[in-house]
């Protein structure tokens, strides 16, 4: 089974039924799979803080949400994470494409990569780094943990996890 399917299977098995996404080349297969699943309402957002607002509303409405985004968006969403998701104590799994790590071809992506874990650490956001495909075996437990403690949780998936960019 493809890694994209396995990730979305874990979402569905954990009753995640409202997923917002911002496009990403690495996560394109996951986004396509999310869109194809009848168990999930897929709502693309224009910016990640908007997406977190959608997720907050959906959760208060009784659905388990998730957001799929790039790590550059940590820079966009610090205020929303602090004053909405954390302040009102809401769960939010963030499946994040960790651009700017090993095998990255675009130098500018490294500029946010070097801040990503420091920012997440500063925000006291539990952070998991998927580097090898076998690391995804923990996703089920991470999702259960997120909805147990009502916190945002970051799952960083780097280029090695996705098998490079296909041009190397």
């Amino acid at each position, binding site marked *: 089974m493809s890694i994209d399917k396995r990730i979305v299977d874990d979402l569905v098995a954990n009753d995640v039924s*409202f997923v917002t996404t911002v496009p990403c080349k690495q996560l394109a297969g996951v986004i396509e799979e999310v869109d194809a699943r009848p168990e999930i*309402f897929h*709502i*693309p*957002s*224009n*910016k990640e*803080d*908007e*997406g*977190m*607002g*959608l*997720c*907050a*509303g*959906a*959760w*208060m*409405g*009784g*659905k388990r*949400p998730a957001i799929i985004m790039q790590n550059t968006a940590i820079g966009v969403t610090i*205020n*929303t994470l*602090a*004053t*909405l998701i954390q*302040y*009102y*104590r*809401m769960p939010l799994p963030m499946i994040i494409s960790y651009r700017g790590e090993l095998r990255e071809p675009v130098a500018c992506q490294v500029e946010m990569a070097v801040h990503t874990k420091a920012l997440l650490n500063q925000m006291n956001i539990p952070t998991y780094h998927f580097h090898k495909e076998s690391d995804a075996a923990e996703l089920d437990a991470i999702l259960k943990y997120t909805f147990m403690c009502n916190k945002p949780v970051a799952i960083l998936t780097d280029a090695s996890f996705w098998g490079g960019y296909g041009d190397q």
Partner: protein
Amino acid sequence: MIRSEILREIAPILRDQLIVCNIGLPSQELHIIDDQPSNFYMLGTMGLSSSIGLGLALAQDKTVISIDGDGSVLTNLGTLPTIANNVANNFILLIIDNGSYGSTGDQPTYAGKLTKLEAVATACGCENVVTCQDVDTGKVLQAAIDSKQMTIIVSKCDSGNIKLPVITKDPVVIRDRFMTAVAS
């Protein structure tokens, strides 16, 4: 009319619905005028009232009214295409458009100058966009609720504020009682 006068007038309509209320003075005003468990007060995160309301409306069947301001909609302008393309017929976005950033000292917004939010919403693909004057807000809002069609209301009113205390309720308490109201 200024925003607080509109809120006072429409409070009897709002109290039976789920309300997501914008940060700052709008929440403080609604909290003083008619505090209800079915009111979700935003204590931070300017711009996301419409996004939270849309997510809530898509997740369950009860009517949701997001009370927003022209300045906050401008902050999160990307919300309008998302609303237009994900129709929730139990969702109403009420933009109280006083042409100014009220909570920060009435600095003018672009909506108070050349930008017409009703035209932006229409261009984004929103189908039911109603522009009204402050005094007609209650009538237009009730019609939108009764229509069971997703509606964007732009209510034009005067700039101005009343002096109010900040909301000191714990955010988790606000959220928890709101979720109980949603689920009831």
